[in-house]
């Protein structure tokens, strides 16, 4: 049964792909930034914190435009990366970048809160037993914050799925390349007779968002129970 047209299906697949990669690639950086904000004192800490939160507060269209300026083929970073064969402008990778940037504050916030909840005395205990700092992080801190990391990742994924403003500003709305589900819904609503397609995508959006939230709750609870050891 063909319940999705090829155009609709393309949008769904593209959204899943961009969100997956956006989450996966930003996760290590998110954990690192969250750890630095939670545990270290350094000059410019407030600046970093502000920078991380900025996409949450700025109008998405502004974030998208800033990305275009920086990562466009003529932008300072974009032209540098182009020489290395990496292009963001008007590619699905650009959509993933925009989604990742927009989801980053939520991810960092969730992980930072869970790192702050870990007693630094446990990390000290690890150090006194001979573990170098990186080992203490991998064997003590990370397992203890795993529920927060999973929750943060799923939240970021759901946010990335819904990203619209920054994406359409940065990489436009090219079917098969940068037309994610929200862009597709917007596009279908602009053409006569597109309502049915838009509605089907809306249902899928709601379904994926709900599933992600429920999954994150479930997994975080399971992992928290495992960590607590009962």
């Amino acid at each position, binding site marked *: 049964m063909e319940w999705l047209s090829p155009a609709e299906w393309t949008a769904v697949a593209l959204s899943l792909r961009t969100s997956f990669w956006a989450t996966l690639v930003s996760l290590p950086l998110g954990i690192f930034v969250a750890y630095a904000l939670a545990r270290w004192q350094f000059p410019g800490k407030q600046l970093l914190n502000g920078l991380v939160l900025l996409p949450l507060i700025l109008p998405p269209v502004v974030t998208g435009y800033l990305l275009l300026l920086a990562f466009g083929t003529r932008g300072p970073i974009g032209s540098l990366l182009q020489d290395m064969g990496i292009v963001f402008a008007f590619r699905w990778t650009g959509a993933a970048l925009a989604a990742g940037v927009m989801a980053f504050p939520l991810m960092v916030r969730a992980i930072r809160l869970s790192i702050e909840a870990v007693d630094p005395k446990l990390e000290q205990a690890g150090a006194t*037993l001979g573990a170098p700092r990186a*080992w203490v992080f991998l064997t003590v801190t990370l397992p*203890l914050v795993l529920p927060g990391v999973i929750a943060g990742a799923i939240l970021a994924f759901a946010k990335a799925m819904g990203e619209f403003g920054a994406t359409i500003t940065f990489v436009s709305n090219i079917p098969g390349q940068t037309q994610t589900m929200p862009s597709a819904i917007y596009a279908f609503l602009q053409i006569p007779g597109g309502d049915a397609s838009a509605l089907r995508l809306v249902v899928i959006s709601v379904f994926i968002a709900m599933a992600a939230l429920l999954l994150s709750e479930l997994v975080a609870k399971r992992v928290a129970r495992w*960590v607590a050891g009962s």
Partner: protein
Amino acid sequence: MSLSVALSHRFGNFELDVTFEAPPGLTVLFGRSGSGKTSIINSVAGLLRPRSGRIAAGDWLLMDSANGLSLPPHRRRLGYIFQEGRLFPHLTVRQNLLYGRWFAPKGETREDLGRVVDMLGIGALLGRRPGTLSGGEKQRVAIGRALLASPRIILADEPLASLDEARKDEILPYFERLRDELSIPILYVSHSAAEVARLATTVVALGDGRVLAQGTAASVLGDPTVAPLGVRAVGAIIPATVVAHHDDGLSELAAGNERLFLPTVPYPPGRRLRVRISAHEVMLASKKPEGLSALNVLSGVVEQIRVGEGPGLIVSVRTDAGTLLARLTKRSAANLELAEGSPCFAIVKTVAIAPEDVSGGAAVSG
């Protein structure tokens, strides 16, 4: 190998400035809270970086501010037993015990898991998580975890403070064994005179960030200058041997040529013990008292009278059991016409000797 520590540090108005030596055996850092004990032990661990100082274990330097050396905690080869245990909640008891072993240099893993597990009686707990353990069980696992890291120094920061009396009695014997069986220095923070009397090979008494006195448990606890630590801290430590247990709930101990009667002690006849008799609990009489309920009356000679501040003074009395300390008021000392060399009788109520004042460790020093 002994541990030598010299350090100074400042927090706000608090000035820490100490120098001491911890020989093999168990050295108690003894003082009230706020005296700087925990800062010292954390400096040795590398968790606190003092403003200046030098810390060395034998000829191995852990820290020397003169040439900017300060090893990070993970390179100091420690076994740190914390007050709250600090077991890793996400690991099983077995994984907690073996945590330090990953990092101990090959060929320096002296302790065997099976031996440590047997010694601490934690075999049944290996598969469990710390969240399901009692306070006493947690501390036993914490001791095992520290030992299995094959440390060169053992640190313990009031490891019994979070336990009730019964649990303390459960854990104390393990520290006695560490003291008697290990050849490395153990630095043990405590504010309990009973723990000092029972465990210490050496005592470093601290007050207001300075060393008030250091030496054997008997010499430090018998020194009236440690009185700021609390009147009950001053007392004599008498080596004694269990002779018999009587049906009326008393144990008879031989100390020198004297007999002491105590509430039943949990050690078999023939066992050598240390008994701490607080100066607070000793009365003196110039004539042999009659019609007195106290069972322990020891004749002796006044050795020394040390006048402290306030109305009190400390009289040391040489008896056949050893030197006892008595805390009296200046008025009573005058009424009894006590002077150095005068004969007297020391009276100790049996029930004044609490179970925590009796230790059954093999190392009877002082």
